[in-house]
């Protein structure tokens, strides 16, 4: 998930939009279009860029949006693990290890993930703007949003969340940390190089920004 160093999460999303986006589309209308009825399950591939690593650390699994405030991240590789965020608590379960429970308030990065995904997939611009300042970055057919966290504890760990997508689907979430390291989550198998192939942050971002 989002934390610490650069991570590149790549959400694999559906393909390009069908209609061109009107120029005067506002952020709220955009977000409203993104809303889906829960439960929503998306496969994802996440790339974490860190100053400790030569290449990004890759993980893959499914992200399930079960209800507002209820998120589940099931990772299959590199190690099986399930993280559930619910009722303000985080539960981390790994095979053969004790279940850990932590308050969401103590991990601002995960709080940000929950807030952004709930707001986006719930289509709730009002809820989103309660926790983030929303900036629309652009465009035609495809869009790019920037969510800047408002709470100080969150802002200390996360500079902004960039959301790429087209029409009514989110294709990538990029978590940018204050030291400019990034975490890119892609929801589109087509945009992601095969495992073992070299991956660059710029290349991934370009693939995300493509319509």
């Amino acid at each position, binding site marked *: *998930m989002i*934390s*610490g*160093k650069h991570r590149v999460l790549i959400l694999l999303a559906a393909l390009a939009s069908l209609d061109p986006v009107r120029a005067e589309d506002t952020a709220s209308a955009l977000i409203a279009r993104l809303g889906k009825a829960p439960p929503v399950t998306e496969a994802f591939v*996440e790339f*974490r860029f*860190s*100053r*400790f*690593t*030569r*290449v990004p*650390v*890759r*993980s893959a699994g499914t992200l399930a949006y079960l209800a507002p405030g209820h998120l589940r*991240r099931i*990772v299959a590789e*590199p*190690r099986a*693990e399930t*993280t559930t965020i619910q009722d*303000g*608590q*985080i539960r*981390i379960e*790994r095979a053969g290890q004790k279940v*850990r*429970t*932590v*308050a969401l308030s*103590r*991990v601002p*990065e*995960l709080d940000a993930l929950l807030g952004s995904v709930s707001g986006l997939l719930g289509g709730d611009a009002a809820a989103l703007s309660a926790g983030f300042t929303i900036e629309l970055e652009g465009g035609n057919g495809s869009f790019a949003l920037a969510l800047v966290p408002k709470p100080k504890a969150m802002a200390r760990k996360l500079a902004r969340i960039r959301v790429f997508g087209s029409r009514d689907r989110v294709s990538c979430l990029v978590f940018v940390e204050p030291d400019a390291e990034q975490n890119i989550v892609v929801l589109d198998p087509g945009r992601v190089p095969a495992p073992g192939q070299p991956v660059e942050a710029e290349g991934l971002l370009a693939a995300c920004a493509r319509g």
Partner: protein
Amino acid sequence: MNQARARALRTSVAVLLVLAFALLVVRDFSLGTDLRSFLPPPETADERLLLDQVAEGPGARLLFLAIEGSGPMVLAAQSQALKSTLAGQPGIRLVANGSESIDDLPERLVASRFLLTDRFDVHPLDASVLAAALHEREADLASPAAFVLEDWLGRDPTLEVLYLAERQKPAREPRRVDEVWFEADREAALLVVEPEAAAFDAAANRALLATIESVFAAVAAGTTSVLQVNGPGAYGVRMEARIRNEANLLGFAATAGMVLLVGIAYRRAGFVLLSALPLAAAALAGIAAVTLAFGTVHGVTLAFGFTLIGVAQDYPIHLLSHLGMATPAATTVRRLWPTLLTGVASTSIAYLAFYASGVAGLQQLAVFTIAGLAAAAAATRWILPDWTRAASPVVRSPSAARLADRLAAFTRLRPIVPVVVAAAVGVLVFGPGLAFENNLARLSPLPKEWLDREVQLRRTLGSADMRHLLVVDAADRETALRLLESLEPDLGDLVAQGAIDGYEHAATLLPSVQRQAWRQSRLPHAAAAQAMLDAAVADSVFVADAFAPFLAELEEARRQPPLVPGDLAGTPFALKIDALLPSTADGRIAALVTLRGTVDAVRLGAFAERRDAVRLIDLKAASEGLVARYRDHVLDSLVIAAILLVGVIGLALRSFRRTLRVVTPMVLTTILVLAILALLGTPLSLFHLVALVLAAGLGIDYALFFEAAEHDPEDDPLPSRHALLVCAASTMMVFALLATSSLPVLHALGVTVGLGVAGNFLLALILLPARDRPARQQD
């Protein structure tokens, strides 16, 4: 010297004594609540260890806080807030609530981690070990759990810090909510507080509890949360408050009852004051004597002291009931004096048995009682007659005469007595039998619920079961640690064989200096470390530069001095190490190996036999043995006291037959009370024995006076019967009040003595009057 001057002299002496005692008490009196005062004195090394663990060990001073009454997340937040505020308070060494993370570890410990960890003992730190660790870290980076690790990654890629932090946690961790300890079966957040003050420092603990309460009030403002504090320190303070409240209540009730009783019995306001005089003298003398001899008066001793009301009351009552219109009080008292003195002497001898027991609390009790009774008797003999004028008219009243006749009728019950006694003996011999209270913890005057709650909390917080312990004797801490390390292979075998599930000792937390030095020598030097890192990193996604801090700390670890227990003062490690390496009275170390799970005592015993310095202790057996041996000791003393008592009475009465008559009601009553207790299923504790002795002393008093009156054919039996009735009534009232107490000690005392008084009263009435004596006419 004429009467007036004699009287003035006596009065002055009395006043001076009172002033002296009062000054002493006011200046030096302090109320003790040390709960060890009623524990038997240890004799063997094992028993000393047992009592140390129970009473004085560092674990014994811990306070356990439980917060409940709100939702779990609220409680968790309050637990954190409480911890952060309390940790900085003076008087508190440590607060733990489960949220201790690796960020809380002291820097000294972190810097020494390569010397403390045992993970590189078998296979030293090299490229393959490091490569495996880096592989794990890579997977961690993809996980939310990484948020704990990221600050440490560059310094500690093998996560030795996390390993050490995990090791200091209790073996069985309670469940957690938001990283904070909670009770298993209820919604209550748990904290452990280690105070500076020992559990028995009542003043410091009082201040500490007040601090905790006020901090909690601030933290929990506006919520429905409540705080519960458990632990010996808290119990001492609560006991003190409770004893004081109950003592006040009982004292007030007893005083009111006494006033009422004396008023009804004698119909003279003046007599109320008169009867109170010896009583006040007894209380003052008792407290002064104990303060002088011991420095403090234990709260329970003071509570026992109220029983003196019942006993000391008898002396003025005998005098007042025997007052005749024609005879001056001084003459009356001189006639009663031999009987009075015999009563005091016999009771004091019985209490001397408690003095011989060696238990501080009982010795205080003995001194209190003997001093008090002596003072009451002296006041009755020398002070009271001066202030008494005429006889009490009620003694001569028709209603009193009717009462006397009714009481005389009790002799008709004489045939029943052998039957009842035989039944009682039958119950004792063939019935459920007398159970003795062998549990050391139950000898404590604390209520059972408090003790049970504390055990429950200690178990939840993962203290190893303390029934079996291995003790390793060593001259000093370093030797102890080395010995413990040498036991490791054998202990591992025992675990493998299933004799124990697990164990813990000081060396698992802090290795000996010798072992640390050995580990230090195996750490790679700078160039080798760099090569190791490069090789490990080559196969991973990591860049070598990221781990420069790791290399620096590795080098630092190779140079620094080994860690000793003193370096860890003020950390949770220190708490555990102090508990596992206690010093003995002679300055040696008795290192403990605590055991987990079901213990195969036979295999452990065999293991202990093979190794010289190792001993297996069964604390339960040791404590029961201690209690049983101690009880035998007290019983022996009581038998001797009983013989002396009969001897004193025989000496005073100079007749075997009379002595027999006096002693019989007391003996029979004791048998009856024991039978009743056996039927009730009450296990007999020390306090029951004390109560039986007290009841016997009272019985002797009744029998002596009664028998004396019956023996003298000139005498009117009415005053004696009246006196007996008032004495029994007043004593019964006092002990019935005690029986209502919530403190187990006082309750036991109240019930037992109440039964004893009733029995002695009835048996004296039934057995003692001379059968062939004609009914007296009234004048």
